[in-house]
């Protein structure tokens, strides 16, 4: 196992820049997820690490060896693709043994490695079966096994769970996390599924339009997003963005909205200009439906029951704001309600750049939600 590092890597396809000056360091034994919407450049990033794409500038390192110009087959990096590409006419044993045979491994050694890998993945009882006779989850494990069997320096996984049913995906998510914890592989995992990116890895690299937006632990990305892009990519339903303006009269910073205002105590000064547009970010679980006359007036227009909780779609000052509530407390569509926000979980973004200016929950801001500014 080894570390892998991209340094200022740019990849272009004709006039399209797929990766733009990307730097990312994955430590030895670390599990990093690369998260982004379709077209963000995630797969290009994996293909660049494995050597299937060549950067126009920048370098790729495995440990401290510069492998930018090394042939893919000589990099000792394994990749598992979304479509598993198992050999349908060969049994599980031969599928697993294939990379070792290619590498001219002695027969006894092949047998030992295949058996070990199959045991770790709980497919040792299936070695004689052909892929067509396996369940979806079993096939997934065989493909993973084939990538692992040579004990590569780095293991790359490209949306490995996206073809699976929801239930199987839940199972494999836990399974993969457990495997990684037990085996300490260096793992780079590409996904567009924020739940996978939140729940499994040590760190998440958020990729948007070919640019790394943020690299941090899942929790930091969730609670301290550096910009609106990152804030929107993690969390479901996504964070609400409410256009507001700054008011700094009397030496007090307020974020003003026609229906409410938020007082912000902060030492941050950059980007906070009296009268400037800004965006208040609040996650659906931090939107509270309150009783009495406190809070901003809103109307319920759709409710989405999810079983354990209900998404309430509210009209607040001409825009839709989603709130997450326990089912028993969900109001009826058409009802008029009052809403407030958990002041410990708010974010203010710059309206033009989308960069986070102040976030609650950290050291840089204390927020207080105030009564509607017109009352």
């Amino acid at each position: 196992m080894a570390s892998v590092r991209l340094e200022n890597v740019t990849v272009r396809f004709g006039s399209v820049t797929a990766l733009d000056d990307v730097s990312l360091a994955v430590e030895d034994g670390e599990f990093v997820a690369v998260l982004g919407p379709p077209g963000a450049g995630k797969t290009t990033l994996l293909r660049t690490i494995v050597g299937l794409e060549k950067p126009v500038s920048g370098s790729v390192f495995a440990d401290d060896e510069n492998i930018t110009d090394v042939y893919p087959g000589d990099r000792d990096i394994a990749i598992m693709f979304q479509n598993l590409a198992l050999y349908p006419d060969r049994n599980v044993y031969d599928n697993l043994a294939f990379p070792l045979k290619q590498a001219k491994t002695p027969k006894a050694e092949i047998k030992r490695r295949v058996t070990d890998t199959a045991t770790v993945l709980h497919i040792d009882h299936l070695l004689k079966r052909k892929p067509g006779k396996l369940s979806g989850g079993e096939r997934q494990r065989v493909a993973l096994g084939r990538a692992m069997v040579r004990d590569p320096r780095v293991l790359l996984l490209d949306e490995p769970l996206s073809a699976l049913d929801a239930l199987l995906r839940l199972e494999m998510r836990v399974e993969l996390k457990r495997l990684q914890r037990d085996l300490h592989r260096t793992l780079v995992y590409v996904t567009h599924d924020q739940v996978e990116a939140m729940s499994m890895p040590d760190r998440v690299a958020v990729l948007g339009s070919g640019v790394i937006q943020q690299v941090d632990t899942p929790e930091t990305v969730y609670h301290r997003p550096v910009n609106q892009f990152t804030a929107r990519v993690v969390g479901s339903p996504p964070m609400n963005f409410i256009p507001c303006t700054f008011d700094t009269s009397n030496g007090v910073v307020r974020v003003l909205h026609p229906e409410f205002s938020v007082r912000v105590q902060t030492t941050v000064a950059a980007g906070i200009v009296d009268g400037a547009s800004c965006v208040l970010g609040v996650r659906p679980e931090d939107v509270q439906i309150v009783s009495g006359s406190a809070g901003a007036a809103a109307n319920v227009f759709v409710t989405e029951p999810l079983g354990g909780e209900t998404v309430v779609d509210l009209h607040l000052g001409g825009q839709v704001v989603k709130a997450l509530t326990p089912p028993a407390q969900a109001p009826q569509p058409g009802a008029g309600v009052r809403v407030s926000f958990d002041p410990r979980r708010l974010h203010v973004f710059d309206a033009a750049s989308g960069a986070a200016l102040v976030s609650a929950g950290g050291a840089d801001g204390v927020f207080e939600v105030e009564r509607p500014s017109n009352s």
Partner: protein
Amino acid sequence: MAEIHLQHLTKQFPGGLIAVNDLDLVIPDGSFVALLGPSGCGKTTTMNMISGLEKPTSGEIYFDEQPITRLPPGARTVGFVFQNYAIFTHMSVTENISFGLRVSKPRPSESEIERRVGEIADILGLRGMLDRNASRLSVNDMQKVALGRSMIVNPAIFLLDEPFSNLDAAFRAYMRAELKRIQHEVGQTMVYVTHDQVEAMSMADHIAVMDAGRLQQYGTPDELYNAPANRFVAGFVGSTQMNFLPATLVLGEHGAGNGRSLTLGIRPENVQLAAPDAAEATLAGKVNLIEPLGAKDVIHLDVAGHGFRVVGTPGKRPRVGDNVGLVFDSARQLLFDDETTLAVDG
């Protein structure tokens, strides 16, 4: 608009596989019904029989009491949206949306076509991009165009086959509420095929859960979640899977079920963590793994050799290896017969 009635519908494929087995289902006029199940459960085959792309082996389909089983697809006034948005990439958004009207007979006047396109564009939020080439749209907007193309011919019934599965999570969450709103506005009967229980739960008035070609339960999202008919439905619905334990483990002798072997089911959010020796704890377990999801954690435990999940709050997170007590909300626990898998009254 129409009510759909499926009567003893069966589809057997030439190889012998019974994809849909004696399905009875009434989809009321103007309602939003989801067909939910894992791949291979028969939901898409059912959809294809409603649209006319597949012929049933036996059984009958009625639209508003008219048997339509032998009608060709084109005569059924059914609109489709598929997973891979079938749009013409060499045409503008307007040309794509208006296509169905332009080929219909009699063809509406240009001003009528323009009015209808405008109406649909407003509903879908495509007003600003009508002149754009469809190939220049984002994946998300392409799917809206595909939806608009089906809507414009005003079909009696709308069939959607996993239309959002190619879209990113944030847009999916947005389109969920949008589609629900659109359905309320246009009032058409909508049948929505999905393997994603979140989509089915959040949008549909009624959900038909299928497995192995058979209808498992037909009910509101609430009924499915809180009163599942059998163990399959209980395990399939809910984003963190229901926990199942041998009933005797939790209820002692009471779980023996008079000679029947029973399984107890309880949802992860209906179990609280406590100290391992707490008096109110029903069982004890050991923390195996924690999945942080942002707003909440899923805590995986080992309970007497069984995998078990609890929903936790990130602020009060135990550590891997900790011993914990489990407090069950006994009003929310369910019992299933191991032989029939059906829910039984505790």
